[in-house]
């Protein structure tokens, strides 16, 4: 077995036992990157020598007994919207093409404390706005299962890097499905925790009230382990929650007997690909066979989630992205006359089309005279959606459904019709609006061999329920192997 076939937890164990080293693991990852990266474009920033040096440092500390964390020596890729001290952080945007942060995000620090070793920064949709990783200023990332297809987004580089074994695990961020959807498209496990579980300090904001950092990994065990490491109460993030129950690995139990699982009928209707639907229902059946009580129910309000999301996220983004103005850091236009011309040219040249579209949309919905009609109404919708989930969780421990209506679309097919692309977020978005945890697990492939993802949604702070269900499901079948993921 190649070292690349190991999971993050398996590798950490091998390193602890002296059967492998952090350097060997990094060398294997680098060899893989050199083999597949040209085709896939998972990374925006990758410095081979620096990565190796970090691995050597880690190995020294491991041998000295100074680095003993659960992920000691395991190479990790970080989505390029998380600040990394001294390492370029671009959000896959031209406007931050030269931006080197002076501090690391809290989640990255937590990973480093646990011994993980940074490989590089992964590609994404510009400022996390997109569902395909095609809006990156640094070229699209390709799906390792079929490079004619997108990896999903916005954490497309992260998901593809895990699928293609260009890392052992990845950190992504999820504002409307940006971890779960690419995980689904790339056949890996991805999880968005309850809002407030992982500190947002150092995460370059898209939609502040929706953004959460989470893991993308090879299996549920890795996912739970990583989440346990990165979740922390952080005084620097006012929306961070003090939690006592972040020992997520305790939920890695192959037992769903008596667990109540609800499938929203609203998730199985028009627009859902037949093959995806069948795979989801087959997965539900598996859980039922294992003793779970599965039934369909009406969640309601599903069709309102997308407009509410695009109003709220765009509004926040229009303000969050105002700081990228050419004054303090990042790209500044070469020639300009006066301040306002500098602002205009810098932002016109520095931002891509999708980012501009959302800034304009967000500025519009916040304008005087429109605030009540759009933004306030969207906030009310958000509250109603949360109530609908609250009612559902009175009856069910876990809500089960697809992560996306289809498998990964072909490159170039989505951006031409943004509305259609937005509609693709239908199953993931309401989870962010309600602040809930969600996980996607591979549940088969379609006829063309592209992965299908099963989404499990839990109530706020009930990650353990979905981890348990996902783990039990995972034990019931072998995952298909990604063709490019083989060493």
């Amino acid at each position, binding site marked *: 077995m190649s070292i690349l076939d190991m999971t993050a937890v398996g590798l950490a164990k091998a390193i602890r036992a002296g059967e492998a080293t952090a350097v060997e693991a990094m060398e294997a990852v680098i060899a893989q990157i050199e083999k597949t990266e040209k085709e896939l474009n998972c990374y925006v920033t990758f410095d081979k020598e620096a990565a190796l040096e970090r691995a050597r440092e880690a190995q020294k500390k491991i041998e000295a007994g100074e680095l003993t964390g659960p992920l000691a020596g395991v190479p990790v890729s970080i989505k390029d919207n*998380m*600040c990394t001290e001294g390492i370029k*952080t671009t*959000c896959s945007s031209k406007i*931050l093409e030269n*931006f080197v*942060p*002076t*501090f690391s*995000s809290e989640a990255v620090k937590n990973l480093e404390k646990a011994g993980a070793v940074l490989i590089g920064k992964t590609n994404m949709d510009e400022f996390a706005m997109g569902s395909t990783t095609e809006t990156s200023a640094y070229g699209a990332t390709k799906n390792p299962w079929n490079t004619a297809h997108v990896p999903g987004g916005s954490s497309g580089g992260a998901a593809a890097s895990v699928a293609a074994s260009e890392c052992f695990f990845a950190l992504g961020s999820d504002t409307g499905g940006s971890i779960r959807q690419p995980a689904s498209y790339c056949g890996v496990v991805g999880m968005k925790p309850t809002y407030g579980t992982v500190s*947002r*300090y*150092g*995460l*370059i*904001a898209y*939609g*502040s*009230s929706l953004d959460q950092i989470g893991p993308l990994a090879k299996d549920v065990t890795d996912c739970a382990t990583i989440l346990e490491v990165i979740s922390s109460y952080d*005084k*620097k*993030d*006012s*929306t961070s929650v003090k939690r006592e129950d972040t020992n997520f690995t305790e939920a890695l139990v192959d037992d769903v007997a008596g667990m109540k699982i609800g499938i929203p009928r609203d998730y199985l209707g028009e627009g859902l690909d037949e093959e995806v639907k069948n795979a989801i229902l087959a997965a539900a059946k598996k859980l039922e066979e294992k003793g779970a009580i599965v039934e369909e129910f009406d969640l309601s309000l599903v069709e309102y989630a997308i407009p509410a999301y695009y109003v709220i996220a765009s*509004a*926040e983004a*229009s*303000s969050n992205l*105002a*700081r*990228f*103005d050419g*004054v*303090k*850091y990042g790209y500044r236009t070469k020639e300009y006359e006066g*301040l*306002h011309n500098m*602002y205009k040219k810098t932002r016109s040249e520095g931002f891509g089309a999708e980012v501009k579209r959302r800034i304009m949309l967000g*500025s519009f919905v*916040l*304008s*005087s005279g429109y*605030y009540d009609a759009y*933004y306030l109404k969207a906030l009310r919708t958000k509250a109603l959606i949360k109530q609908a989930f609250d009612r559902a969780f009175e009856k069910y421990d876990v809500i089960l459904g697809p992560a996306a209506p289809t498998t990964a679309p072909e490159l170039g097919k989505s951006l031409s019709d943004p509305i259609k692309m937005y509609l693709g977020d239908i199953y993931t978005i309401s989870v962010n609006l309600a602040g809930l945890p969600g996980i996607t697990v591979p549940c088969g492939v379609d006829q063309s061999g592209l992965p299908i993802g099963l989404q499990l949604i839990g109530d706020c702070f009930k990650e353990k329920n979905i981890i348990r269900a996902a783990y039990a499901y995972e034990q019931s079948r072998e995952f298909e192997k990604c063709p490019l993921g083989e060493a």
Partner: protein
Amino acid sequence: MSKQYETVIGLEVHVELATKTKIFCSCSTAFGGAPNTHTCPVCTGMPGSLPVLNKKVVEYAAAVGLATNCTITQNCKFDRKNYFYPDNPQNYQISQLYLPICRNGSVEIETEEGKKTIGIHEIHMEEDAGKLVHDEWEGVSLVDYNRSGVPLIEIVSEPDMRSAEEVIAYLEKLRMLIQYLGASDCKLQEGSMRADVNLSVREVGATEFGTRTEMKNLNSFKAIARAIEGERARQIDLIESGEKVVQETRRWDDTKEYSYAMRSKEDAQDYRYFPEPDLVPIVISDEWLDEIRAAQPEFRDEKKARYQKEYDLPEYDADIITGHKKLADLFEATTALCKKPKKVSNWLMGETMRLMKEQSVEPEDLKFSPGNLAKLIELADAGTINGNVAKEVFEKIFAEDIDPDQYVEEHGLKTVNDEGALRSTIEQVIRDNPQSVDDYHNGKEKAIGFLVGQTMKAMKGKANPAMVNQILKELL
């Protein structure tokens, strides 16, 4: 001019709070410092940074609200005000629009016309911006974020004022309350208190308000008074000549005594306010509010009553001394040291105020220490120095806070009590001024004053005046 006009004025007052650290990060709020040294990722708007609210800001804001009879919004929150300008590193200011921390308050002012209540519409918390430095030589603009994130409260009055006099009385009242609270030093010149004046005029008896303008850049009470007079006259001129007052923001130039239009309502910016998603709503519990209430200091009226009772000060003295927090603080600290309240009061009301007026010093800028004033009082009281010397030494204390013991010693200012020396000097004065001696003997009592003066002059002011009088009379 046939018609009578009434001026209607409302004020927006910004006050910098006296917290040690900024509103959303732990950087120092200290004034000065090399550019961009009191900064961090938060107050320079670095990507990925997040604000964390300074609890003390809420306490100060609520304390000012309580002191101005406001209702405290126990569930309040912050909003973002979006606008592009380089002094604002995030290109939005964290402020409060929808749920300001204090609402519906009032303060009572007193002018020559009598007492009047001025309504306070709201008080909200917000962050200050940085400062642009224009380098004409290099042709560039630089920005200093040391002030970025310094906490402010904005106190918005109702349009209840009708004259410059009322405006000044209102500002002085606010300043006094806030200084008593220790929530700010409220220095207009340094910008820790800033007032924007909203003004309109209407015919006396009219029920509708006229179109208002907002005036900025007012750095002193005098400038505010001049700006109000100037703007009132400008608006009346417009109306009288059949023109319309345009709703706009104007900048007052105090040296030219004229205001310039900065921007009109038409090009007013749309700030696109929305709730700040990086901060959670602020919940001020009943217990917390009680704590803030319990920590309210003794305000002027209570203090005044106490001074009369505890220190036996005349009402007149107590009124003047409590008129400013700094004077009251000096009074209490000095009295605690020398135990002579009336003497302390006399020094503050007399020489201190005389010098303040002469040198245009504001009470909050008084530099001398209670210890040195107490020592001076002891010196004068013990007869170690006479009254004139004491005044001379006080000027030094006022200016440089010198130690009077040391100063008197070094400059040989002690009163001469040596009878032999006094007697021989006086004998010489009598010999040199036969005319005055004659006048005295002819019943001109005043002549003795001249002879005392001559003696003092000969003794370089250091003679014990009582002894001089006594010896003179004896020798004459």
